[in-house]
């Protein structure tokens, strides 16, 4: 059957970008993530789905150590990025986050110009040597985020003055300006209208030629549309992780089936 698979949907990467083994997360006494093992492929969109409070966002935030900022949060187990343990003492979380970028639910541009929003990351990480190089990075990032044509004549205007969909694409441009290897997206479209959602989804599909993208979404249709691999979380467990086609047409676990067909929330 494999040769019948539409090429567009095919997962053409076999390399693991992120390997998680036996991951446990605790918020104080509460055990939020239980024994999660997952292999996230390079150049692939992986969707995390599951009801609210199932741990999908918590697990996503483990992947770039965003949970470090929460005092009561403890992470155990092993998470490898290209076979390097990201929780190793020698890893600088700031450097890690340049490699593993993140886009949040609500667009959160800095209260700066459009240009400075995108230039911020490359500047603080010293990725460019001069203004010309920085200009190039800003333009390339805005182009990749499908925003360049809309903002090229007003780069000095404040980022907060853009529409919601444009702001979210600006945040994506900001996240990719540091040339990350993995892009984490936590419900990137939940505050957007359907047109802006479609633009961001189109963008996600393009981004996977360069990055590994992990997206948390409440919209199962969105997971089905944009991802090649889907992981279903429930009560802190990773219930099922498989090809998106398989998950949405013939899932193995009855809990997955109940969730995607709208029987448990």
């Amino acid at each position: 059957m494999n040769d019948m698979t539409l090429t567009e949907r095919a997962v053409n990467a076999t390399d693991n970008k992120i390997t998680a083994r036996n991951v446990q997360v605790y918020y104080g006494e509460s055990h939020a993530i239980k024994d999660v093992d997952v292999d996230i492929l390079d150049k692939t969109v992986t969707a995390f789905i599951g009801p609210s409070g199932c741990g999908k966002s918590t697990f996503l935030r483990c992947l770039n150590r965003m949970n470090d900022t929460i005092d009561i949060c403890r992470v155990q187990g092993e998470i490898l990025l290209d076979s390097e343990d990201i929780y190793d003492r020698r890893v600088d979380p700031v450097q890690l986050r340049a490699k593993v970028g993140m886009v949040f639910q609500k667009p959160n541009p800095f209260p700066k110009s459009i240009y400075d929003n995108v230039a911020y990351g490359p500047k603080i990480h010293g990725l460019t040597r001069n203004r010309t190089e920085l200009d190039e990075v800003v333009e390339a990032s805005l182009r990749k985020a499908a925003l360049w044509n809309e903002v090229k004549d007003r780069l000095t205007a404040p980022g907060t003055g853009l529409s919601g969909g444009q702001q979210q694409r600006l945040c994506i441009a900001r996240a990719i300006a540091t040339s990350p290897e993995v892009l984490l997206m936590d419900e990137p479209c939940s505050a957007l209208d359907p047109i802006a959602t479609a633009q961001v989804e189109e963008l996600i599909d393009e981004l996977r030629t360069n990055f590994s993208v992990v997206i948390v979404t409440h919209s199962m249709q969105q997971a089905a549309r944009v991802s090649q691999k889907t992981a279903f979380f429930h009560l802190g467990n990773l219930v099922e992780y498989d090809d998106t086609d398989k998950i949405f047409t013939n899932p193995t676990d009855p809990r997955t089936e109940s969730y995607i067909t709208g029987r448990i929330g």
Partner: protein
Amino acid sequence: MSDHILSAFDRDLEAVQALVVKMGGIVEEQILNSAKALETRDAELAKAVRLRDRAVDELEEKINEEAARLIALRAPAARDLRVALSVIKISASLERVGDYAKNIAKRSKVLLDTPPISGTPAAIRRMAQATESMLKDALDSYIQRDVELARDVRQRDLEVDQMYNALFREFLTYMLEDPRNITPCMHLHFIAKNIERMGDHATSIAEQVIYLVTGELPDDSRPKSSSVIETEA
């Protein structure tokens, strides 16, 4: 499987499946009545079968509309999606079976003007009854989501195929004996072939049930008897 959180979704799924069951009931009657009209040389019953085919066609259209609406409005996934797909395919099979019954009714009218071929209409009626029972069990397996019964239906197609092969040889013999038998035997042969095709559609429906429940079509090929093409031609 428990109910959807959105109960209207359950009502939609049940409604479209109820239409399939209703359509299946009419088509079963059409098979039996067309074979009965043939054996008893009943022109009135044959006409009633012809006219009733319209109701079958209308139900198929209605089922397709409902399935399209379900897909558009409810975005079904997994088993729900397979329900939507299976009602489309099952109703298409039922519609074809209905057409074959109608065709049998048309041919039995022509046969009224030809000399009877002794014994064969009764044999055809037995074949129709075996096929109707396959279809009935295929639809029961659909209602009950009974994979074992569906597999059983699939096996029984072999019997109908063998009945057809036997009739095929019988018709050849009659036609060789007396050229005046050619017209009725040609019609009777098409009727037997129609019923054999009905059996194939009942088998398709059984396969849809297996797909609906397990998510996979049976991968072994259908049981086959040596066909008339190999033995006679």
